[in-house]
């Protein structure tokens, strides 16, 4: 078991797999990178070769112009993988965003799983997380404190729809991260029966189209830039969080500002963001999901990449599980994206 430390090295800038000379989610350009998902703090541009799911490659192509067709970049469906330097790599659903994967590595009889970011509750835009048994479980801990318990998504979506209906002369502007959260909120709204056109900021357009191209039904989307102010009254508008209080929002009919994020659980945080309608909708595992997942995977050792690692470490200690924090750097988008 202790062999793992001879073939895998956690560095501040990513996880290095020695026998394969490959990095997982490196923060700097490298020769060979395996990428868990398309968020910018995991997927960077400039790598020599990228190994990821086809959806993640498509997202990277859209964001960074990564050449998907180039033979050195390879896409693998869930369950598939490749072998390099004696290490068997395979991709398994993480339930975080479209194409997000846990990466399982098998080498010399040892199994290591890198989760990237993940969640356990249902998401109409991506495949649900699968428990992959392993010896070392390398997990995120964005919400690694017991104060984070995301309420049921349906309850938050109902809150959003209720807010729009309560003030038909206004609009509700939802700040949602451009990759993943925005599409999920739209898909959840559709699932809850919201059939009206949903208005979007231009920055969301291409990613929504990409999701739709992958079979995620987002219904009718309209660009705010092409809409009349009057027609958006009583409607739902989505924008990246950075646009919420920007000049852009002046074209909207008296918007109620909302943010969809796990951080909205904490009132003072929501207040600081000038939010009127906090929606606790997260693409990251909450405390119960994190702890349940560790218990279900039941690894020999748990490594924690980023987030509130102190809380999760403490829980591991209390439940007598071997664990350590890796202190990976550059995972700084969480505030916006979680």
């Amino acid at each position, binding site marked *: 078991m202790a062999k793992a430390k001879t073939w895998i090295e956690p560095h501040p800038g990513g996880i290095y797999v020695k026998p394969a000379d490959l990095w997982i989610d490196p923060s700097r350009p490298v020769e060979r990178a395996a990428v868990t998902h398309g968020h910018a703090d995991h997927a960077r541009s400039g790598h020599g070769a990228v190994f990821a799911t086809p959806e993640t490659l498509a997202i990277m192509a859209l964001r960074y112009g990564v050449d998907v067709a180039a033979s050195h970049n390879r896409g693998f469906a869930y369950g598939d993988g490749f072998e390099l330097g004696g290490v068997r790599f395979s991709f398994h659903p993480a339930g975080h965003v479209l194409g997000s994967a846990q990466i399982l590595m098998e080498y010399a009889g040892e199994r290591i799983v890198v989760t990237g970011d993940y969640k356990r509750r249902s998401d109409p835009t991506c495949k649900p997380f699968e428990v992959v048994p392993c010896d070392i479980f390398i997990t995120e801990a964005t919400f690694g404190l017991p*104060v984070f*318990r*995301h309420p049921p998504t349906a309850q938050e979506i109902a809150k959003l729809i209720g807010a729009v209906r309560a003030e038909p002369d206004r609009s509700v502007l939802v700040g949602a991260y451009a990759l993943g959260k925005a599409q999920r909120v739209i898909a959840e709204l559709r699932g809850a029966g919201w059939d009206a056109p949903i208005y979007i900021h231009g920055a969301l357009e291409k990613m929504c189209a990409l999701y739709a191209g992958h079979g995620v039904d987002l219904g009718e989307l309209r660009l705010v830039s092409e809409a009349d102010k009057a027609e958006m009254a009583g409607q739902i508008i989505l924008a990246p969080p950075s646009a919420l209080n920007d*000049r852009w929002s002046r074209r909207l009919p008296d918007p109620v500002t909302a943010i969809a994020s796990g951080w909205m659980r904490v009132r003072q945080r929501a*207040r600081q963001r000038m939010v009127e309608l906090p929606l606790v909708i997260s693409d990251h595992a909450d405390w*119960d999901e994190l702890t349940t997942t560790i218990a279900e995977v039941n690894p020999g050792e748990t490594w924690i990449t980023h987030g509130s690692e102190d809380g999760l470490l403490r829980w591991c200690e209390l439940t007598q599980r071997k664990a350590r924090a890796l202190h990976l750097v550059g995972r700084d988008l969480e505030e916006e994206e979680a």
Partner: protein
Amino acid sequence: MKAFAALIDRLIYTRSRNSKLALIVDYLRHTPDPDRGWAIAALTESLDFPAVKAAMVRALLATRVEEELFRLSRHFVGDTAETAALLWPESGKPLPFREGVGVGSIGLAQGRWTPPAATREQSSQVSLPSPEGEGELSVSQAVDALSAATRSDAPAILASLLDRLDADGRYALLKLALGGMRVGVSARLARQAFAQAFDVPIDDVEELWHAIPPPYAPLFAWGEGRAERPDLKDVAFFRPFMLAHPLEEESIDLADYAAEWKWDGIRVQIVRGGSATRIYSRGGEEISAAFPELVAAFDQEAVIDGELLVRGEVQGGEAASFNALQQRLGRKTVPKKMLADYPAFVRVYDLLAIDGNDLRPLPWTERRRQLEGFVPRLADSHFDLSQIIEARDFDDLAQRRAGARDAAIEGVMLKRRDAPYVAGRRAGLWYKWKRDPLTADCVMMYAQRGNGRRASFYSDYTFGCWSDAGELLPVGKAYSGFTDEELKWLDKFVRDNTLNRFGPVREVEKSLVLEVAFDSIHSSKRHKSGLAMRFPRIARIRRDKPAEEADRIATLLAMVT
């Protein structure tokens, strides 16, 4: 508790005053007694449960949540009540992402870690109603339970209440129990909501409010037309203040108006009725606790209106600046040293009632006559009479106003001699004629986005003046004085000249001169420049003036009073 929790949540995230008002109005109309009364008392911080304090809540949490996880959580959240509300274990509730898996099995308390034996025993000794209780927990049930709590059974009682609520409900309960609601609802706003909810005159609500304790049942009965207006005989109730308009007329005839100095303190009303003496501030908030020496010294069955001031050494025992008075405000208890260093007194200018007789319908001249006879009955150590300014005519008055050097003089009050004392601001009865504002040319340093309608505009500006060393030091912050057009221009300036961003704040290129008007300027330890302005506002945007030619700190120091 659900409706109350929802109300608090909405209030937290609602910034506009009118929207807050609408939320409370709606709540008062649709919530039964006595819940709404207790709720409004909680919102205005009028409840106190001596047995329930933050330390007790922390100790209670320690029996349910492991200490280190609590500490980390508290550190992250920054508020004990909210941390406790979020952490409180909901045992037996299935995980939201998968049916049938109980949080408890691997959650906080029921895992391999167990609470210390001592606390476990303690909580099992007390017999309590079943955690589920009967139906939804009401605000009044919670208040009753908390009021009955003693220090020894309070933890168990609070725990049984928390067990019956969800996270939002727990937050509401803990805020109700501990105070520190911080939802931006003043007592004044709550009373306005009451008046609006039941369409009754705000002046009546103001008068009645302090006379009736929570949950205000007679008040609601009156509001809903189910009962007569409550009788306030022998009660030290608040009378709404008579207010003044700014003087805009060129000149007025002093035969019709009496002139007094306008003092730069805080307006207070002191009421003695029954056996109680109470001091009310302008908004009708009771501030008796902050000024115990005045409560003790006011021994006459009367109601006075006056200016609360602090005696200052610099002025040779006369009224000190507002700055000194600020040391005394907002206190629940006053240390002895504070009483000695900042002795308070009231400069009395009106008499509203005496020996049970309401003088408010009488003309000012008659009230003044009675006032002059009454003030000598009060201890001169704590009360004096506001003097009438003897001016030959309006021009003479203008000269005296211009020549007034006393730091505690803010301007002149003009009161119509034949006017009764009426609540609020009535045209032509009272005028305030402030001293001309001071101005300084300052340089914009930082800008912050506003609230509500101004959320997308950089509308709050921090500005500075030059030190002798040639450094720009902040001297104040202003968010008014400009037109909508000017705001648009300023917003664009900020966006086009941003140097740094710190969350909602932007640091800007130090190139724009703002002419800032302010009522007075004081020394302050809070700012690096050592200065603090009163009522600063943007008087003009000086695009014509180079930043280097803005005023120096030394110039402002010379204006300090």
